[in-house]
């Protein structure tokens, strides 16, 4: 077990390093300098580049970045907020917290609503409840998040005036509702689908029949005996879901005008502010990789049938 965990951590760190290298090389593949404007002369560009160390060889720059990251130093912003620490921009100005809060709420909603919906659908297999849920989940995984968010915006925000149109910095609990629903609808439907399939598998097993024969109540059978075994696909999905929620965050923050990390990331790409792009990519990638790591370790703990020696399926 320990060697497995060590191996997984090793691969994760390697992946993160790879991402840093890819991001760095990609950004440097763009011709021109980030300081290029209509007014600037070559001397000015050279001076600015020297100031931020952009005149050094690529490999030295890359090494400086990697060294910095492991010391918690992400460099300073070149353009968008000149001279400010990237760490400060991402973590202290509330951008990360804002996006993180949204993401956590979305994950919670997706799991807390999605799993019971899947159970209900599986238990009422073939009835109208199952059909309704099936239609909902099928449409739910086909509707792009920006369409859903915009629909929420039009109907809840503009037409019926239930929720604020611009969520802003999420100071009000009402401001959370639309973004969180927009963010969590796809994973919720996906989880409901997953749970339904594996629940159907589980309730046909012998141990469920035994539990039923012993006279246990249906709710207890479903939630205590069957659910435990069908949560494994859901746990496996948590990794991709984190990535999906980050992706969805870009759209949601754009739609509801939330000044979070996703919105900032896109504008930093368009402005070519290297340290911010690097910093944001690394933070988000680290989040996804960490989640994948946790999921991998947990679900091997949860299900002893999964072999630990061969990490290859």
């Amino acid at each position, binding site marked *: 077990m320990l060697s497995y965990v060590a191996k997984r951590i090793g691969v994760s760190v390697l992946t993160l390093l790879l991402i840093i290298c890819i991001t760095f090389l990609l950004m440097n593949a763009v011709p021109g300098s980030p300081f290029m404007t209509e007014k600037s002369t070559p001397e000015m560009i050279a001076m600015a580049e020297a100031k931020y160390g952009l005149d050094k060889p690529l490999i030295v720059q890359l090494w400086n970045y990697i060294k910095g990251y492991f010391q918690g130093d992400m460099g300073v912003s070149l353009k968008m907020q000149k001279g400010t620490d990237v760490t400060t921009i991402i973590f202290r100005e509330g951008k990360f917290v804002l996006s993180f809060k949204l993401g956590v709420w979305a994950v919670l909603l997706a799991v807390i609503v999605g799993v019971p919906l899947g159970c209900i659908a599986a238990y009422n297999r073939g009835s109208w409840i199952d059909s309704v849920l099936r239609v909902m989940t099928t449409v739910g995984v086909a509707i*792009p998040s*920006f369409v859903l968010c915009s629909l929420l915006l039009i109907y809840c925000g503009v037409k019926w005036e239930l929720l604020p149109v611009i969520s802003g910095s999420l100071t009000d609990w009402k401001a959370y509702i639309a973004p969180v629903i927009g963010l969590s609808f796809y994973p919720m439907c996906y989880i409901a689908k997953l749970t339904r399939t594996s629940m159907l598998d589980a309730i046909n097993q012998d141990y469920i029949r035994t539990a039923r024969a012993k006279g246990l109540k249906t709710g207890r059978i479903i939630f205590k005996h069957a659910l435990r075994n069908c949560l494994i696909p859901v746990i496996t999905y948590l990794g991709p879901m984190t990535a999906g929620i980050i992706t969805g965050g*870009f759209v949601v923050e754009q739609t509801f005008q939330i000044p979070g990390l996703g919105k900032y990331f896109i504008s930093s790409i368009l402005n070519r502010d290297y340290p911010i792009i690097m910093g944001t990519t690394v933070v988000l990638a680290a989040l996804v990789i960490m989640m994948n790591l946790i999921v991998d370790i947990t679900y091997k703990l949860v299900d002893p049938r999964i072999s630990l020696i061969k990490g290859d399926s």
Partner: protein
Amino acid sequence: MQKLNLFQLNADRVPDLKEMFAADFTPASAEERVSATESRKSVSYWRDALRRFKQNKVSMGALALFFVIFLFSFLGPMLIPYNYADQYRCSMKLAPGEFSKAEMTAKAALEHADLIYDTVLSPGSISSLSRNTTYWFRHKGVTYSFYNEKTLGDVIVLFRAEDADPLVYISEKDAENGVFDNVTVIAYSTENIDTRAENTARLPLIRNVCPHVFGTDSAGRDLMARCMYGGRVSLSIGIIAALIVLFIGSLYGSVAGLIGGKVDFIMMRVVDIIYSVPDVLIVLLLQVVLKDPLQAWLDSSPSGFARMMSNLGVGIVSIFITFACLYWVGMSRIVRGQVLQLKSQEFVTAATALGVPRSRIVKRHLLPNSVGQLVIATCLQIPSAIFLESFLSFLGLGVSIPMTSLGSLCSDALETITLYPYRLLYPGIILTLLVLTLNLVGDGIRDALDPRLK
């Protein structure tokens, strides 16, 4: 060791079985003969799958709906007179089904006349023609030509079939009042009726005014034409991207699976790492990074391929490149799994034992047996490619104006969403239906080809 009496290998004379057991055999009776012959054609794997697919009502319905969207996107633009890029300045910001003032005039005039030119409706209209040239058109066997000496603001050229010299300009006011008496013939010539005058162009006629079914956008572009075109772009991107993924993924996966051993191990670790890279972050970066160099390359390269790509637009080409770079890993895992599974099957062992060359084993055994899996994976790849493209376009990183896709239409609509929500609804609904039907068809194909997976 017991000696085999009958079948001695390498024996000089192979014993004649028929002769040996002649007494034990009797000819089949007529009844037996009937039961032994094939009573109906054997059902092949694909025929069986097709039958299963046809029985699946949901998938068949989805397929029908998909065809409707397909026809809407690919045939639709031929049926409406509007173009995705043309800006009709008099028809800005129209609601669905609404007509602009000029179009209403044209409609009113049409009640009394057979044909019209709307001078303001389209870029190829009379007001945009060069002056002092003779233009002509033919209707019901008669050719009419006219000079375009003077262009007025909101005027319409109209034509009455029963009148002798019917080519006139009328003003918008006249048309609204239904009065056509005080019209002025500006220029009209009956000479050279059969021969086309020099420097003349043929003009398209308008027989009725086409409504803007989905309305128009702030620049006066017809939204339905844009939706059709956007659907075409989204669908093409989905299909081409899925084919790219299929090609690279199956090549990589089958090489890894076939060679096996250390090569396979290293190749699959590469796949593992690419798989755990958060794809969207890299896709966003790639989109931005690729755009400028790609444009420069496309502009400078003289080859036909580059020109074709340049017609597509840099945004779309960079979407293809990102798919080629990142999204093949899932496909390569599936293919490798298939190859590994098939490699250990008895029929492959038998073929190897018989000395069949490896290339023939691949052709005869591995490929046909994994086609089902490849079809399923490719079908389900198409909607996810459409999803990604629309996501990128929504963030403003995909296709660029005037080219459009369903995602960029939604993105454009977001700015004015409080005033014109329908601008987002139409492309949004089409996009959702497209992804939904493709998902359902993909599921249906999976169930039909591989009933065990259900």
